[in-house]
């Protein structure tokens, strides 16, 4: 550190920025996409629409993984077969969120969790939400079960599962 040197940079306040004290330019990026779901995730979504959770198995390392993929990241080879999993599992970890995705606050917290799915290998889970439970009552290792949307409301989405609840 060169002592006594003035470090560059001109801090602004929120008011400077929003009340026209400095000049600004706005832009809506209008960056829109549609991602090909492909073989693995396409099938996973189709099975969610059917009310089922499906994984994929690698014969070499003998792991059954979820979310499914057509390749085994451990062995670098194709995975071999589809495996239907249960819609039950265990809470691997959880948190209690007072924030929406855009950092605005909510009064009633949501409970994001990683749920390890029964039928897949230990530690294999995905991100979802817990409900029908008080935040203080959630425990790591707790047994949970998917609560599904009604069949006619399902569209082939991770949100076809409304949430997981204790069972």
């Amino acid at each position, binding site marked *: 550190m060169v002592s006594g040197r003035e470090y560059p940079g001109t801090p602004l306040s929120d008011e400077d920025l929003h009340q026209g004290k400095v000049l600004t330019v706005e832009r809506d*990026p209008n*960056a829109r996409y549609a991602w*090909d779901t492909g*073989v693995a995730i396409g099938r996973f979504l189709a099975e969610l629409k059917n009310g089922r959770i499906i994984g994929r198995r690698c014969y070499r390392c003998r792991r059954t993984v979820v979310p499914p993929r*057509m390749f085994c*990241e451990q062995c670098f080879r194709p995975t071999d077969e589809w495996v239907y999993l249960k819609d039950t599992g265990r809470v691997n970890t959880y948190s209690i969120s007072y924030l929406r995705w855009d950092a605005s606050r909510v009064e009633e917290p949501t409970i994001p969790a990683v749920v390890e799915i029964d039928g897949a290998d230990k530690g294999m889970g995905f991100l979802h939400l817990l409900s029908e439970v008080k935040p203080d009552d959630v425990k790591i290792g707790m047994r949970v079960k998917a609560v599904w949307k009604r069949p006619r409301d399902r569209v082939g989405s991770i949100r076809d599962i409304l949430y997981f609840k204790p069972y």
Partner: protein
Amino acid sequence: MPDRVAIVGVGHTQFRATSPGLSYKELMFEAATKAYADAGIDPRRDIDSFVCCSEDLSEGTGIFDEYVPDQIGAAMRPVHTIAGDGLQGVVAAYMQILTGAFDVVAVEAHSKASNILTPNHVLALAMDPIYVRPLGAHPHIVAGLEMSRYLYESAANREQCAQVVVKNRGNALFNDAAAYGADLDPEEVLQAAAAFAPLSRLDAAAPADGAVVVVLASAARARALDAEAVWVLGAGWCTDSPALDSRQWGTAEYARLAARQAYRLAGISTPSREIDFAEVDDTFSYKELQHLEALNLFRPGEAGPATAEGLTAMDGDLPVNPSGGSLGVGHLGEATGLYRLVEAVRQLRGEAGPHQLPDVEVGLAQSWRGVPTTTGAVVVLGKEPEA
């Protein structure tokens, strides 16, 4: 003079306007599977480091480098992304091997251009937010402006640019991987609707989807592998000013400087005589001409007439873009330059099939990152480790 580095494996998917049956991960897995089979290696055991080339907004993902390792055999390995073209990924791999700390490095790049619903809005985000974007122009206006300046300074004409289109789309008819082979005549190109005049719709390469993986190795490892090595004789990369206001417009300064670095490393003093064929960027027809001059393969103003005379055709003195180029193969986003390198490797191995050139010893692959950038790279490849 640094030690030589070899290309020991190449692999890629077909290139098509869309790829609806595969996710980007599945495309990458296919290209990687082929490249590793080509090199005869197991990535989980044999590859020391991986380089992926991508830009977040081309993927629609905030930190895309998160999603690259699993499908290329790179989970829990040294992996980094180059936010740049595939040839810039190759130079990153090349340098890693030259340090002596890595023997085998893989480079991946891909395009899922069909998944971008608002491609020109996304590309507009690469323009200066204060002075350029508010004008609301389509970003390809930069190419139209540059073409006007290039034609003015070089005395090349639109007919010569049209001949680039005819040649490259014709060459692509002999490349099974290419998306856009076509049998055209120059008049048809000249009559195409104006897009950013003087640029017509057919002067611009259309995007295509696909993935490419290349494996590089140290000289010692290359010799130990049961793969046909092609050698990196030299590499260079460069950026001119990113701003529209202070860059060179008539000439491709970035390509000139990148080539100078690559030729110096390769010990090449007269490129037009020492290089047998070139895969150069032709994102827009005039860019092939401008790049050939910047690469010192033709003198300023001579690439247009040379093209008209057929010197850059498959049977010409200096075949250019025997693969079909971006005009014929499709523009592959950050994989564009990497696929050109693959083509150069195939030619030097004698494996280019219906578009194989006879008697080639030294080839050049060059990339440009497209509008609005002034960034490009050059790699010179040879059959033997000594130029």
